[in-house]
């Protein structure tokens, strides 16, 4: 029997979906800002994560209310737990997007463009396809899709390590150079790291979908 308060679970679900779509949008905008050397995009991304933070607070509050007043069991409890964990992951995606946008705009404001020697665009593509698929897997309850996301994380990790190696060796070579260039390299190292973190959160989201569907944690 469908109870009237199950509607409230649907609302939590849809807030989570709204929040994740928003985070993906901000993240992608920040990444495009970097890849396309587009200061406007980077600056737009900078002001977009407030709504994400607000939704996280709302979801937590709704979750506590639902647990307290509705006495959920079984998959309903899992949905609540996943809502709390996933909203935290999504909020972190928003934070990483924010810091990508901030570093990008600082580089662009100083230098007008970013030389793209490393695999940022490629990493970003994988990370955001993981995030997009995790959202789809959640919406559609697609267990296979969720499982397919988890292992894609390692490629992003590899690219990040590569980026780090390249950029830090350039740093060594640039030691005699002015500080400005070195600080740009460091910023790009951080941007690479942020994308790697976004992929981590996408992987977490995928694991949360698997838990929601099966009641079991995924162990790879």
């Amino acid at each position, binding site marked *: 029997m469908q*109870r*009237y*308060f199950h509607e409230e679970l649907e609302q939590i679900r849809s807030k989570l979906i709204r929040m994740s779509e928003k985070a993906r949008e901000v993240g992608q905008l920040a990444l495009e800002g970097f890849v396309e050397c587009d200061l406007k995009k980077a600056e737009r991304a900078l002001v977009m994560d407030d709504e994400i933070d607000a939704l996280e*607070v709302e979801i937590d*509050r709704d979750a506590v209310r639902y647990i307290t*007043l509705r*006495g959920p069991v079984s998959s309903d409890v899992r949905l609540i737990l996943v809502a709390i964990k996933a909203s935290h992951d999504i909020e972190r995606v928003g934070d990483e997007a924010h810091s990508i946008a901030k570093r990008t705009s600082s580089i662009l404001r100083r230098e007008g463009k970013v030389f793209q020697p490393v695999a940022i665009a490629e990493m970003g593509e994988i990370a955001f396809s993981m995030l997009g698929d995790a959202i789809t897997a959640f919406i559609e309850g697609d267990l296979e899709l969720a499982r397919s996301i988890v292992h894609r994380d390692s490629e992003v990790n590899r690219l990040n390590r590569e980026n780090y190696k390249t950029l830090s060796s350039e740093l060594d070579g640039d030691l005699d150079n002015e500080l400005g260039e070195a600080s740009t390299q460091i910023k790009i190292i951080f941007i690479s790291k942020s994308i790697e973190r976004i992929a981590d959160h996408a992987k977490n989201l995928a694991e949360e979908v698997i838990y929601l569907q099966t009641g079991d944690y995924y162990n790879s």
Partner: protein
Amino acid sequence: MVTKTNSSLKECTPIIEVSELDFAYGSTQALFNVSMDIYEKQVTAFIGPSGCGKSTFLRCFNRMNDLIEVAHTKGGNIKINGVDINKPDVDVIELRKHVGMVFQKSNPFPKSIYDNIAYGLRIQGIKKKEILDQVVEECLRSAALWDEVKDRLQESALGMSGGQQQRLCIARALAVKPRILLMDEPCSALDPVATAKVEELIHELKKNYTIVIVTHNMQQAARVSDRTAFFYLGKLIEYDATDTIFMNPNNEQTEAYVSGRFG
């Protein structure tokens, strides 16, 4: 963090206003200086340990305590729609038409399902079959019972399941078109499925009726009510939005009671 109170609590009109009520059975006082407003088209739950006076208080609203010889109001008053219901010129029969009651143990009359509902109307002098048919169907539908019993309206109500009997009693209470429905532990004898059905019904009925429910089931109070009042030893300890009472009550005794740490 600021806890937002239930938005459904905005803009509501008090329909019952209780002011400084003292109530006693003989020399034993059962309610002490209780003041509270109960709001129209909301569900208000009374909770509290056994003997704290919930049923006594509920029975004050339609003067069911009049039937108990030693029971009497010692002070204060209760107004329903602005009228002091203990005034000598109040017609108690009329009052009980406006303020219906459903009890813990379902108590259908040993008559047919149809007659259980038609009874109250016949007493009022309504005899036309078309009208009775229509009201019986309406009430059974409102009580979410019509589909289950429409083919056996002439069978005895005593042959129904406990949950069906309880919903029949609710349907019977609705027949005289009350504005307020008092329910004293309406689900305590029901299984979870029947309980869920009655709760759904309560949720549905609050669109048109004001409901006051006494329950020992915390989860039920949390699920069905908009406001909750916690009583202890005849005193109203805390009364607030149900969200607040269960998520963040102000009083330590309330917190202890709702979290099962009481006593």
